[in-house]
């Protein structure tokens, strides 16, 4: 975080006085010939928590993987801190990817390493720190996600929520300032999910992280999101963008209202009714 706290104050950035952390420009992405999202453009501002919403199959996780640079978009560009990850050479791309901390849906911890070693792994790979210093850093990261008690456990011994929290700690290890989380609260009990939301808010407050969170858990969306972008699998486009409460209360789009009010699909309703 900046000593001046600029990193943690997204409202400054949202006024246009700072460059966005991530810019997506005229993106078309998909698999093979199948287009999942077309002509998508949006910015993620520093210190902001942006949530990507949408039903299953709308391309939320795929969009995240395009942003990370794991998949190449069909057309369009994605800028990380003003530099294109799409056009970057392999070494530049690796540099840009190290700016991004990613937590995958399953936590994606390495099964042969314990929790502490998993969190320490990026530090082992990319820094010259002494082992004791790396251990202290990793333990403090685990402490921040309330996993300090589990440092010596193996991933196979962890619950779903613990895997995700350890995944967040590992994602933060290299001091990246943008964290991308894929369905952090999916499949968790309400208390664990609320704890995870609190962890995300606390990390933003204390460390000024920028978050891009893929989720369709309504309670989490309202708890953490500054702004939400909704993807639609049928029109293959962004159909809504704004504060979650505004989208719920004022959107004129029936698909958005349906999502936020947890209404079943109208076609199916008629068929079953």
């Amino acid at each position, binding site marked *: *975080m*900046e*000593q*001046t*706290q600029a990193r*943690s104050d997204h409202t400054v950035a949202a006024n246009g006085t700072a460059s966005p952390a991530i810019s997506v420009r005229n993106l078309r992405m998909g698999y093979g010939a199948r287009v999942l999202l077309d002509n998508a453009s949006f910015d993620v501002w520093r210190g902001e928590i942006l949530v990507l919403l949408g039903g299953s199959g709308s391309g939320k996780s795929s969009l995240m993987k395009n942003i990370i640079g794991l998949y190449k978009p069909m057309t369009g560009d994605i800028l990380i801190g003003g530099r294109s990850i799409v056009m970057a050479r392999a070494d530049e791309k690796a540099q840009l990817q190290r700016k991004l901390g990613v937590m995958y849906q399953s936590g994606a911890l390495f*099964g*042969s390493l314990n929790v*502490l070693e998993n969190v320490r792994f*990026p*530090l082992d790979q*990319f*820094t*010259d*720190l*002494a082992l004791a*210093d790396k*251990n*202290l*850093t*990793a*333990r*403090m*990261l685990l*402490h*921040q996600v309330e996993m*300090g008690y589990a*440092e*010596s456990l*193996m*991933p*196979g*011994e962890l619950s779903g929520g613990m895997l995700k929290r350890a995944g967040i700690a590992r994602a*933060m*290890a*290299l*001091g990246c*300032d943008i964290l991308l989380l894929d369905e952090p609260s999916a499949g968790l009990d309400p208390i664990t999910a609320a704890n995870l939301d609190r962890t995300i808010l606390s990390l933003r*407050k*204390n*460390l*000024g992280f920028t978050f891009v969170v893929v989720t369709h858990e309504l309670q989490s969306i309202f708890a953490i999101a500054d702004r939400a972008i909704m993807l639609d699998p049928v029109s293959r486009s962004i159909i809504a963008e704004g504060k979650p409460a505004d989208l719920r209360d004022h959107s004129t789009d029936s698909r958005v209202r349906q999502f936020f009010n947890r209404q079943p699909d109208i076609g199916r309703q008629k068929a079953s009714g």
Partner: protein
Amino acid sequence: MSTATTDGLHDSVSLVLEGRITAYTAAPIWQSAIDTLAGNPNRRVIVDASRLEYVDDVGIALLFDLIRRDRPPDAKVEIRELAPNLAALLRNFDPQDFAAPARGQRPMGALEHVGRATAQQINYVKELAGFLGECASALRQAFTRRGVVKWGDVLDIATEAGANAVPIVLLIGFLMGVIIAFEIGLVARQFGAVIFVVNGVGVAMLRELGALMTAIVFAGRTGAAFAAQIGTQKVNEEVNAISTFGLDPIHFLVVPRLFAAMLVMPLLAVLADIVGIFGGALVMATFDVGFLQFYNQLIGAVTVGDFVVGIVKAAVFGLTIAAIGCHRGLTTGAGATSVGLSATSAVVTSIVLIVVIDGVFAVFTS
């Protein structure tokens, strides 16, 4: 640029941190700061953070490491002019929580290694015996009750384990025949006993090498695949799902594989026998033993018993490899690493047991 500089005063020393302290730049700064603390054990250390531009989690760990150190009351470390959000963050960490060293794996002595490995192997043999008992019971039921075995599954597995393995078995069998004939032929020629090489090739291929080499290929290819397939199903809780439906995983997953292995191993061994002997015949032609002469000598040298022993052995090897592969799969722990370990262990255990069983056969059938 980030630096740590010191400015010594009478009763205190000043440590200036400036610039950016990140995961990539922290190592020398951290070391320099610790050296400063170590060099001034009885003086107060004032850390001037006013010129810090940026710190990441490693930088925060560095700051925390400085203030958590056990020093005399009048020689404490004090951080001044730290940004309020960082100061608040540092207050969240209690030095007591980090007092104990990070827990790693306890180092084990050689004797403990041997002891643990022995106990593990004894447990494994016990487990395997129990598992083989369950398999025997399941096979008995399969023979006595109709509809227990899903023959469609058996055929699919047999196709993958048998038909798809034919090219590699043919290659290995052919090369074995060629190598044996050539090596023995070179020695036998010195004694004018080239024709007896045919006896050696025939008996070796039919009784031993046809079945043995096929079994080793089968263990590496199919035994590992069985362990990995069932291991992955175990990790994904598919095995639990099968049990929850009231189905027995042994009947559902293991028995079809046992049948398939017992069925295809003898067939593969026969193919290995044929191409091995053919390879031997090709080599013998270079030693002036024609095909007809080779055939006549072979008919006189081998018996139906040699062939039957080889085939029975192949079936037993197949059963053993499939049982061990399935057992290793069903005892897989959690995670991708466990699946890999199960597959490796299935191959190693299978090959060891094949050689042991081959020895038993050699004793009782000679």
